[in-house]
């Protein structure tokens, strides 16, 4: 057994701790900061990204995602070929609650035009995000068991966005499934017709 050495307040030889000591079930896999980026993608096996059967589900956190152009939708898509194509067939639902800063437009509505029925198109996660200096969208998306070769791949997202044209809150809910039994190995996020000017997307694995 290697001797554990004490080196400036760190235990340098420790590679594992007893199972009786909790280590947490949420593991940060990758954090990417946008800077006028056309998109942000997470590809299994690339730049330290793990998107396989290591974890049973994955969570993506969106922190102040800010579009370069005003009133742009924020989208997700999935790949089964390592990011060569983001065109997985999806069936989804989406609805939102909204209220403007003027106190008008209070609403809870299903967004028929933004859901997908067996479509390969990008799926919206929030609509018309503003590009004002303090405007952005934040939230999260959970993807379940992407490496399964038995089941379709479910995902659930909820985001809070500053809507540019409406000048108010869009609480946007999206859920659905990638209708494939092939393993999902890459995920991409982007705005429509706009770069991601600023923001952080973090990817976590859930044990």
């Amino acid at each position, binding site marked *: 057994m290697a001797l554990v050495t004490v080196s400036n*307040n760190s235990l340098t030889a*420790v590679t594992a701790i007893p199972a009786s000591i909790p280590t947490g079930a949420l593991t940060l896999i990758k954090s990417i900061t946008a800077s006028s980026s056309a998109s942000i993608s997470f590809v299994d096996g690339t730049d330290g990204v793990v998107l396989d059967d290591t974890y049973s589900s994955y969570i993506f956190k969106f*922190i*102040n995602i800010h579009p370069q152009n005003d009133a742009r939708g924020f989208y997700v898509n999935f790949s089964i070929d390592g990011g060569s194509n983001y065109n997985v067939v999806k069936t989804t639902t989406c609805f939102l609650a909204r*209220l403007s800063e003027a106190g008008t437009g*209070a609403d809870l509505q299903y967004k028929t035009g933004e859901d997908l029925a067996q479509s390969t198109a990008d799926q919206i996660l929030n609509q018309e995000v503003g590009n004002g200096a303090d405007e*952005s969208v934040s939230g999260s998306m959970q993807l379940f068991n992407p490496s399964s070769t038995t089941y379709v791949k479910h995902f659930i997202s*909820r985001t809070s966005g500053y809507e540019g044209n409406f000048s108010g*809150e869009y609480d946007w809910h999206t859920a659905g499934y990638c209708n494939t039994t092939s393993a999902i190995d890459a995920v991409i996020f982007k705005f429509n017709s706009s770069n991601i000017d600023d923001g952080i997307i973090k990817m976590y694995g859930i044990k």
Partner: protein
Amino acid sequence: MGLTKLNNISVEDVTSIPVALGDMVLVSSATASASASVEFTLGDYKEYKFFFVNMHPSTTSFFQFNLSTDNGSNYNVVKTTTNFISYHNESGADSALAYNGGSDLAQETGDQRLGSLKTDNDANLGGTMQLFNPSSTTFVKHFITRTQNSNIPYSEEYYVAGYANTTSAVNKIIFRQASGNIDAGKILMYGIN
């Protein structure tokens, strides 16, 4: 450099080990006991997540929160929010999913409601709240909550989302009842690395 000592089964003075310990960190927790409010100090995590466990009021009223940009001297940050609820009566007679216009805020400084609570002994509220990047001096501060409460004889689920419309850093958060004390309950605050 302080000498690191082996102390029975603990190792004192160790500040790091080369093993991942998880990226959801319990920053603070508070157990209410006839408490007028529960407050937490916020820092630089990009996301905070709060868990509400068995929140129970002394008076029938709304459980709510507010934010401060001056270290708790004032809880009056301007907010625009949405709220919708689903509910179902224990008798099965009444259920709905609906926008809840009475509990949203449009550029208002008042507390944001997170759920309606009764004082029945077994009535309480549970749920979570995410607060994104409160220390930013660039962006407004988004938050997302989902709570389930026993507004007896109703089961109610509250969905609240919105933003604190300030580019000042938000450095304190307060939870309290609209009337009376938080009789019991626990709030846990996690920072997400």
